[in-house]
């Protein structure tokens, strides 16, 4: 019983597939909050082979609940990688051509240092003693990992949703160290609505008595219900009304008539309950608090005197900004704001709003238009930068 409740990740980080590096030993990671992380671990996975001149590296940035396994069977859930459609031999992010790197974000729970990691001072999990982190901190940590790999210039940094925020942060902070940036279904800042949805999720977790003020692992407990509710709520925002309707309509779940009770009468209820309960098996509640907070704090313009364009001054990065017409979490207007800021500095930018009714999650799904244009964009960038990939 004790071992089951203690192991937040059913697999300990030493047993996770992929790679693992301890960073920040000599140069500590100074966080935006002022706190210092030294040392810290980054867990990452790679696909393909880094070429001789280290010019074919693509950094894939994952979303809120993603991890470093975009293109293989997930070690915990045994499900397909979250970007299996995009990454692999002969696919858009072709592993025969590119060296794909994906790391678990700072604050995460799949091997990278986060609130469930052991605090070296107390020998207990950090819990809420873990410093609050930002998208900037995540990217700074990634940069240290890329330096560790000896890669001077990434061919591309790409990601959807929170991954897109990291892409924008990369392009803003380390623009001279990447050729191309592809923020998909993202935003240059979190809107009031985005923050509001996250706050509901966090409150659900914190209202669960088993959260124990964040010390659940010490108390041998887990806030399963709170985290499940947070996931259920968030999951709705990843879809769209037409997509939900197409998938479930008002169909009943394994019954012919309504029960006049509070069972999952409807298929959509059953689906959300399943989403919630399966999520808690692979994700840490405190990580959910920290990472949603990092997203809420993201506002690229504010760091640059309130003018987003200043974040990209003199940039030589080639951008491809993508949004989805039915995404109401990070609607097209957010991407267009980024495009206008890039126009204002005469940056090289392409922008496409993909027509789809699949909502925010469209970036993870089979969208041939996205795959086709992204492929063309990357080929064009290779020609333009005269890389031999």
């Amino acid at each position, binding site marked *: 019983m004790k071992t089951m409740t203690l192991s937040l990740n059913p697999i300990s980080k030493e047993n996770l597939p992929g790679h693992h590096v301890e960073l920040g030993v000599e140069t500590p990671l100074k966080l935006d909050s002022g706190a210092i992380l030294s040392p810290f671990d980054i867990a990452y996975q790679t696909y393909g082979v880094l070429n001789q001149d280290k010019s074919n590296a693509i950094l894939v940035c994952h979303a809120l609940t993603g991890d470093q396994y975009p293109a293989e069977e997930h070690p915990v859930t045994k499900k397909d990688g979250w970007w299996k459609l995009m990454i692999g031999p002969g696919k858009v992010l072709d592993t025969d051509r590119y060296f794909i790197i994906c790391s678990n974000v700072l604050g995460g729970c799949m091997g990278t240092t986060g609130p469930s990691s052991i605090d070296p001072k107390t020998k207990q999990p950090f819990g809420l003693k873990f410093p609050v982190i930002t998208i900037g901190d995540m990217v700074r940590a990634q940069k240290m990992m890329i330096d560790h790999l000896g890669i001077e210039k990434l061919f591309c940094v790409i990601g959807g949703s929170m991954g897109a925020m990291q892409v924008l942060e990369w392009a803003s902070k380390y623009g001279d160290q990447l050729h191309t940036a592809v923020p998909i279904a993202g935003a240059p800042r979190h809107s009031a609505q985005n923050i509001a949805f996250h706050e509901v999720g966090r409150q659900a977790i914190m209202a669960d008595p088993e959260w124990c003020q964040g010390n659940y692992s010490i108390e041998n407990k887990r806030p399963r219900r709170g985290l499940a509710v947070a996931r259920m709520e968030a999951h709705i925002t990843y879809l769209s009304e037409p997509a939900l309707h197409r998938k479930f309509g008002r169909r009943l779940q394994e019954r012919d008539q309504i029960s006049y009770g509070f069972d999952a009468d409807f298929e959509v209820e059953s689906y959300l309950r399943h989403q919630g309960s399966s999520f808690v098996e692979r994700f840490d509640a405190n990580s959910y608090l920290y990472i949603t907070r990092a997203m809420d704090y993201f506002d690229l313009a504010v760091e640059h005197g309130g003018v987003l364009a200043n974040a990209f001054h003199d940039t030589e990065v080639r951008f491809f900004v993508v949004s989805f017409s039915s995404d109401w979490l990070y609607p097209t207007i957010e991407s267009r704001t980024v*495009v206008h800021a890039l126009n204002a500095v005469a940056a090289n930018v392409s922008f496409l709003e993909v027509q789809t009714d699949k909502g925010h999650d469209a970036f993870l799904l089979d969208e041939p238009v996205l795959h086709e244009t992204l492929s063309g964009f990357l080929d064009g960038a290779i020609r333009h930068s005269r890389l031999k990939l």
Partner: protein
Amino acid sequence: MTEELTDKPLRSDLKIISDLISPGSRVLDIGCGDGTLLAHLAENKNIDARGIELSQEGVNACVAKGLSVIQGNADTDLADYPSNAFDYVVLGQTLQATRSPKDVLTTLVRIGQHAIVSFVNVGHWRTRLSLILHGRVPVPDASHYSWYDSPDIHLCTVLDFVDLCEELGLKIDIGLSIDRNTKIQPIRTRSHTANLKGDQAIFQLTRERS
């Protein structure tokens, strides 16, 4: 893909526009369609080619060719560009579909050293005759639209355009009229001949020096 494109002959106005553009310059093509002109310029004239296109199909085709194109339109997506961001800003047969041609023209000469504008001349004698003979709004030969669903909401003649340039203080550096046999004639200011005989017109504009 760009190789295939260059084998195809350019639309007559695009060919002329391409000839107006000096090699190695920065070009923004507004309403760039599937990127035919941009691909031609990038391929043959070493141009830093950018585009704006309204349709997803057009943007898709452009980006898939490796061109830098954003989905947007001339009315709403030009304002953020800094002044003189481009050597040439091209508006090929798109002015008539903008909501505010005056604002668009003013912006073109702000963000570009030169603006190149082409349009179908509604003052052509055939168009005038068609209205007299048939009593119906003439639609361009190639158009699939009727008067009620056409995106072309601000059609003009050569004379209309020249008047507007004067009103906005725009200097016409080059004016060309093209007939249906792609014969090119220079347009002299307020030329009634060009207004009667030109199927299309192409103007190169700059800001009037103050």
